[in-house]
């Protein structure tokens, strides 16, 4: 069954909309977002409030807002209006998610090993599950898997915790991993090491990866394709290699404004926000 789908897209999203009811009225957080992806590294980039995280959460039915879409399908199966029971067969098993800060995602009163086994409970049991867990820890390049398996979350550094978190998400061997700013809380060198692990996993396990980030320059070197979001809409879709030729002034502005080591400027260019960017984008 999975084999048949190998060629087609894993995930199809058409005209995804997310609305929030607030005391001041309805906030339209995500507007007509459409994309399809296969086994690749797809980046969703934008500033805070652009709707990138809500888009990622909507795929797993985790946004508190009201989700509507013409199509939101994983291997052709719709992801809208599923029961909790149906979700359980998908969440954490076929689609997994890694959050920003491992401190808040790991359960502080369970050892890493217990949490890994918990994640694998319905797939493998006993010694086989343990072997699988240790293998996963090794796969995220933890040098001493036995020690980390026995460790409590507070005994791990940020980078180690995030690796353990990724290992946990991979226990069920998902086909799609959604990573929401998975490395923002980490130091630069550790950040890159974690990215290298994700990169490896996408290649060796043929996973799809949705990488949600605010860092366009990181995404440019790490991902295959990029969706640039602004005010709830996708302004531009690009392959990462042609990002330098981006046409939209917002994308160009985002690329230009971070300070660069090699090319120092007296003043940094500032983004001039154009109200027309808020208007509906024509497909």
């Amino acid at each position, binding site marked *: 069954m999975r084999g048949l789908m190998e060629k087609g897209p894993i995930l199809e999203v058409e005209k995804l909309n997310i609305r929030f009811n607030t005391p001041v009225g309805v906030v339209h957080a995500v507007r007509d977002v459409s994309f399809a992806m296969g086994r690749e590294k797809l980046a969703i980039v934008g500033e805070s409030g652009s709707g990138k995280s809500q888009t990622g959460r909507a795929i797993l039915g985790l946004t508190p807002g009201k989700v509507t879409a013409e199509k939101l399908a994983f291997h052709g199966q719709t992801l809208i209006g599923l029961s909790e029971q149906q979700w359980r067969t998908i969440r954490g098993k076929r689609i997994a998610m890694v959050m920003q800060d491992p401190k808040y995602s790991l359960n502080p009163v369970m050892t890493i090993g217990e949490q890994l086994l918990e994640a694998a409970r319905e797939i493998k049991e006993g010694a086989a599950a343990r072997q699988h867990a240790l293998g996963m820890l090794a796969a995220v390049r933890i040098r001493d898997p036995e020690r980390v398996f026995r460790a409590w979350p507070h005994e791990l550094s940020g980078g180690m915790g995030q690796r353990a978190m990724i290992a946990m998400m991979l226990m069920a061997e998902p086909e799609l991993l959604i990573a929401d700013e998975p490395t923002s809380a980490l130091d630069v060198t550790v*950040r*890159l090491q974690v990215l290298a692990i994700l990169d490896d996993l996408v290649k060796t396990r043929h996973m799809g990866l949705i990488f949600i980030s*605010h*860092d366009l320059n990181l995404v440019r070197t790490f991902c295959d394709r990029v969706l640039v979001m602004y005010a709830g809409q996708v302004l531009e879709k690009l392959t990462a290699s042609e990002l330098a030729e981006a046409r939209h002034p917002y994308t160009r*502005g985002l690329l230009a404004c971070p*300070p660069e080591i090699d090319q120092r*400027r007296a003043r940094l260019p500032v983004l001039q926000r154009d109200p027309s960017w808020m208007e509906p984008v024509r497909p």
Partner: protein
Amino acid sequence: MTEIVTESAAQPMIEIRDLSISFGQGADRVDAVKNVSFTVAPGESYGLVGESGSGKSTILRALAGLNPFWSGHMAIAGQKLAAKRPRALRRLVQMVFQDPYGSLHPKHTVDHILSEPLAIHGVEDVETRVRAALDRVGLGPEFRFRYPHQLSGGQRQRVAIARALILEPKVVLLDEPTSALDVSIQAEVLNLLTDLRQQLGLTYVLVSHDLGVVAHMCARLSIMRTGEVVETASADDLSEGRLLHAYSRQLLIASRGYDPAAIAAFGDF
């Protein structure tokens, strides 16, 4: 460890010699900063770069007078710092914090936040000074009576900068002032800081994990790791790749983006 001794005629604005800072006692003792020395000239902007736990923020907090447990020599504008500081010396050094959501009192209006330091030091003319402070950081008078939760991250950081400047300090300590902001807002805040330094002749010490930000803001910088200065370099050294220490070079490579081959060669420091 290299120490740059600036033999200029002018007295340095900040002088730090053999600064050590430790927390706890006995077996729990953690040496957060070990024998760090550097000087900053008046009007200069100096950078401290490093990853978490390198001790860079600890130095800044000691300079600000928030941490009394240090040993060594620290002086600002020729005045030696001790555990207790006279008020006049406190006015000279102000600080801008990393998290704009945590550095403004949630129950105080912008007006209250800005006038509080004036009230503490008994400065007259509160009305005009508060207006001028808002104007200086590019916020209109309509922001004056808002609460922090009614402001965006960038606006809050502007208020924090206005608060730091309202006592007319000579030294402003910047602790990751833009790392919690979006890149486009970061550009605006960094430009503002650049302008203010020129207009007011301020001296900055900027702490950041982002080599790009430090290279942009500072002519000279120290790269730190586990409480020690690994290397002191100029911004030109950075952009031309003239770094001596392997750790500094790795940090520089890491800041250039994702490159699997380079990452595989990373050492463990």
